[in-house]
C-alpha cells in the first residue's frame, strides 16, 4: 500500500520530538479524524535551523511529518512556505489517494509554525483559525463540527470559500 520511501520514514521517522524553547509552534488536526500534528521550529537568520514534530496518526501521517521536517530543515522561511501538499507526496513517491489529506496536514502544520514565529516577531498573538464557521462539517473526514480542530476548520473555509 505504501511506497518504500513512506515505509522508511514511518519506520525511522526523522526529527521526532519537541523543542522546549521553540521559536514557533504549529499544530493542526483533530483526534476524531485520526490526525494531530505538532511542529516546532528554531529559526536563525531567517533559516530553519531545527525542525521537530510530534504526530498522532496513521503510517502516512507519520511519514509525511518526517518528510516535511526533512524538507524544511535548512530552508529559508520563504522557501519552507513553498513546501506543498504535492511536493510532499512526490518526495514520498506517492501516497494512496485516501491518505492525501494526511499530507495536507504536514505542510499546514509547518506553515502554521512559521506563521506563529512571524507573528511573535511582530509582537502579535498568532491568530488561531478557530474562529471559522461555527458549525462546520469536514468534507475530508465527513466529521460534523470537528472539535477544537484548527486544520478541519481551515479545510472548511477553503472549500466553502472557493
Amino acid at each position, binding site marked *: 500500500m505504501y511506497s518504500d520511501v513512506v515505509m522508511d520514514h514511518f519506520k525511522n521517522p526523522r526529527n521526532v520530538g519537541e523543542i522546549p524553547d521553540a521559536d514557533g509552534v504549529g499544530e493542526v488536526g483533530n*483526534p476524531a479524524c*485520526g490526525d494531530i500534528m505538532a511542529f516546532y521550529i528554531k529559526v536563525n537568520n531567517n533559516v530553519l535551523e531545527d525542525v521537530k514534530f510530534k*504526530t498522532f496518526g496513521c503510517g502516512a501521517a507519520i511519514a509525511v511529518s518526517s518528510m516535511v521536517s526533512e524538507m524544511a530543515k535548512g530552508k529559508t522561511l520563504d522557501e519552507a512556505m513553498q513546501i506543498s501538499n504535492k511536493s510532499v507526496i512526490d518526495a514520498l513517491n506517492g501516497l494512496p489517494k485516501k491518505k492525501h489529506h494526511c499530507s495536507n496536514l504536514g505542510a499546514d502544520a509547518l506553515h502554521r509554525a512559521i506563521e506563529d514565529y512571524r507573528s511573535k516577531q511582530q509582537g502579535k498573538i498568532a491568530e488561531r483559525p478557530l474562529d471559522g464557521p461555527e458549525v462546520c462539517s469536514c468534507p475530508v473526514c*465527513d466529521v460534523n463540527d470537528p472539535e477544537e480542530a484548527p486544520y478541519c476548520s481551515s479545510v472548511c473555509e477553503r472549500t466553502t470559500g472557493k
Partner: protein
Amino acid sequence: MKTINMDHVAASSLLPEVVEAMMPFLSEKMGNPSSMHSLGEEVTEALEEARGQVAGLINASDQEMVFTSGGTESNNWALKGMVLANRSRGNHIITSSIEHFSIMHAIKALEKQGVEVTRLPVDKYGIVDPDDVRKAITPRTILISVMHANNEVGSIQPIAEIGKIAREHGVPFHTDAVATVGVIPVDVKALNVDLLSLAANPFYGPLGTGALYVRKGVRIEPLIDGGIQEQGLRAGTENVLGIVGMGKAAEIAAGELESRMAHLIPLRDRLINEIPASIEEVEPVGHRTQRLPGNASVLVRYVEGESMLLFLDMEGIKIASGSACISRSLKVSHVMLAMGIDAGNAQGSLLFTLGKDNTNEDVDEVVRILPPIVQKLRDMSPLYKRTTKFKAIG
C-alpha cells in the same frame, strides 16, 4: 519470519478438506446446475448436498436455505425483499445502531425511498435491550433486524429474546449472523428468527459465498430476479465452486464447533487480560463473557490504530483496527460511538480475531511485541503525557 494471523474476520484460509471438495469442480465436474443432461445433474446433486450441510449447521430444513454471493447480499436482500413484500402492511423497520455496513447502508437506501427507521441504542457493552425492541414496535412495523454478534466489539445480542418479542407481535425478524454461524451454536428455531444471513468464510469456507435462511411461510420478494434457480427466490447461475466449499466447511464446523470454542476462549481471554496488564491506559471493548469466542478488542490511548498495525505487520502479526484511518470513509466506527466511546479513543482500536490455527505461543508473541511498539508511537504522539490546549481524549 513466522506469520501470525489474528485477523480471521478479514479472511481465513480454507480447510484442506474444503479445498479437496472443491477441486473436482475446477476441472472435470463442470456443468451448469440448471441444464438437464447428466453434466448438469452431478452439479445439481453437489449443490443439494451443500444445501443440506449448511441447513444442518443452523437447524433449518433444506428448502429454507437460499444461496447468495455472501453476507452482504443476504443482508441487502432480507431488508429490501421484506420491504418490497410488505409495503402494503407498513413502512417501519427497527434495527440497532451497531449493525454491519451492509445493513446500515441498505437501510439508508430504504430510508431514501420513504421507509421509516428506528435505530435502537446499545449499552456500554454494545448490547441491545430487548425491552427497547418491544417499545419500538408499532402497527406499521414490517421488520426487525438486529445482528447476532458484532465482530468489531465481539458482543453477542440477546437474539432469542428479541425473536420472542417479535413473534408475539407478529413482526418478521431478521438477524445478521455472519459473525456467529459456524462459530458459536446457532439454531434458527431456538433463536425465533424468520430470516438469517450467513457467510462461509467465518467457518473457513470460501470468500464471496453465503446464504439467507428464509423460514418456511415467510413471504419475501427476490433482490435478484430472473429464473428458476433457488426456488425463484434468487436467480443466476450458481457459484458452484463456492457453494460446494461452503457446504463442506459447514459440515465440518457442525462437528467441531465445541472444540473450536474450547480452543479459542482461553486464548481470547489471555489477550483481553494480558494486553492491558502489560501496557498502561489500554481498555478492553465489549462484553467480557457474552462475546464471540475468538474476539479480543482493545483501545490503546494516545496512538492511532493503523500505525500500530503497520509495525505489527512488520513483525508478521496480522490484526485489524476500527480506526477511522483504515475505514476508507475516514469515519470513526459507528459501533464504538454508539457504545459511548469517544471518537479520539476509538482511533486506538486494536481488533484480534483468533482462529483454529492460533496458539498460546502466538499470544505470547503478541504480548511481547506490542508494548514496545505502543511505547515508540506514544513517544511520537502529541497527545501522550501532555496537558495542552488539545482536549484530553477520554
